[in-house]
């Protein structure tokens, strides 16, 4: 099966990717080839097969005691941010003022 340019644009928007015309055209070709290949899986009858949820035998849920532990200090946590101010991440305006 092949994928359309409109589908690529929709998926790119979901994935928060901005593809220019060249990249979109290339993506249509590449994704069509790859999806055509993975459609081989349609040849198998898997109705009665349980899906894998974990690579090992089912593991018990992993919990720890509910006690507070030290995390990264605030200054360290924001040190790698592209923009920070007063120990906080600085981001573009989210809510427009009316």
């Amino acid at each position, binding site marked *: 099966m092949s*994928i359309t340019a409109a*589908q*690529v644009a929709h*998926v*790119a928007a*979901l*994935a*928060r*990717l*901005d*593809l220019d015309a060249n*990249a979109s055209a*290339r*993506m249509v070709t*590449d*994704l069509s*080839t*790859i*999806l055509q*290949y*993975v*459609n*081989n*899986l*349609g040849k*198998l009858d*898997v109705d009665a*097969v*349980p*899906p*894998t*949820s*974990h*690579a*090992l*035998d089912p*593991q018990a849920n*992993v919990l*720890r005691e509910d*006690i507070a*532990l*030290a*995390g*990264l*200090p605030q200054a*360290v*946590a*924001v*040190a*790698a*941010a*592209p*923009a920070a101010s007063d120990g906080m*991440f600085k*981001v*573009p*305006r*989210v809510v427009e003022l009316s």
Partner: protein
Amino acid sequence: MSNLPTMTDLTRLTAAETAARIGRGEVSAQEVWDAYQARARALDPVVRAYLHLEPAEFAQVDSHPDPVSGYGAGGDGVPPVPASNVLAGVPYALKDNMSVAGVPMTCGSRILAGFVPPYNATVTRRLRAAGGRFMGKTNMDEFAMGSSCEHSAYFPTHNPWRLDLVPGGSSGGSAAAVAADMTAFALGSDTGGSVRQPAAFCGIVGLKPTYGLVSRYGLVAFASSLDQIGPLTKDVTDCALVLNLIAGHDPLDSTSVAGAAQDYRAALVPEVKGMRFGLPREYMGEGIQPGVRAAIERSVAALCEMGAIVEECSLPHTEYGVATYYIVAPAEASANLARFDGMRYGYRTPHAGDLRQTYDLTRSEGFGPEVKRRIMIGTYVLSAGYYDAYYLRAQKVRTLVQQDFAAAFERFDAIIGPTTPTTAFGLAAKIDDPLQMYLNDVFTLPVNLAGLPGLSIPCGLSDGLPVGLQLIGPHFGEPTLLRAAYALECALGVRNPKPPIQIPDVAKGGATV
């Protein structure tokens, strides 16, 4: 002086041999460090294995201690790691997706250019606590997505056996650095073959441990149900030595398995009499390079001569492994890479107006083409209306792949076959054909889908290039694999093979440090 090893000789030694010599006082940790640094500085301008090389000066004290506070500091709920002097000053390199506090980590991506992580990966803490010396961070396909190292956003790495060939990937920098004696050993990560395939292409030993045996804490996630850290070493003994140091339960990784690690050096016995090996016919069919087939057949004959039993078997869903993997892994990657949004770390576009544009442009400018391709596939197969047809179906076929192996392990102690269908391919040979690049991993991907251990060892040459032999075992069957690999290493006489690359060749080429 004459009976002491020269600088170059020192770098030819394995990690275990080096640690023993330091332990006996024949050489110092500083001499070893200086030798590896000198060689890396002379060779790496042409091999290009390192993204970050530590300063040449030998640090008398550890230059990268755990941070004084926060995760990794101990005393705040972070468990201590075992301390020893097993490595005694032996240098190691890390793939650039494992965190060393204070050292830049890029994952081979522009989106993490300049990023400096604030804490150490558990494997980093463990190697340091065993007396290892951190040499540097190695090149990789961006976010470990690739089989050639050509998808690094920075530069391609070259195969030390022939510089016009790829070293494999995605842990290609680690494999090339070990093969060219620019480090005593390295760690890589393996999501679909990313330790074993470059080990095969570079003529070294590479292990993908059982899922859950080695902590993933501090490893940047690609596909969380498949990722596992493993050693790339010069011989099988070093593989066991390094696995001993990095295996073990870690409360900081919820998929880490308790009580599974053991002393893997006890498995180093050259004795395979009565052991049963399955040779899948799907692994020896068409598409296998004749020289690869011949090297595997010689290895099978060697096992039989030592009294092992090798029988043909079938893993009937092998042909579906690549398709299954290229749904499951991108699906997980598209979720894991959603965190790169330009807000908390890494690159942020200077070209955006509003928030949405900041996300879109940051990711489009920061990610390379292969990463975008995988994010797109993953987002597509998880999107409304397609989940059942792709992701759910792939997870069901994944069960069939696991059942193939489970049935085989009722008859056999291990599976044996080639690691890859061919020896190392040329730079630029497959870069424009993603599907051909993916098919290169046909024998390694199923092992990750099933969470099994897989070990690649060099088993000979084909037209002057290394051939990798893969042993696959049941969950936590690492001792069986190491034992068979050790026996083969002894029988085949292929141990710590050296590529023809020489420092004088490089110097003649006008390389500068």
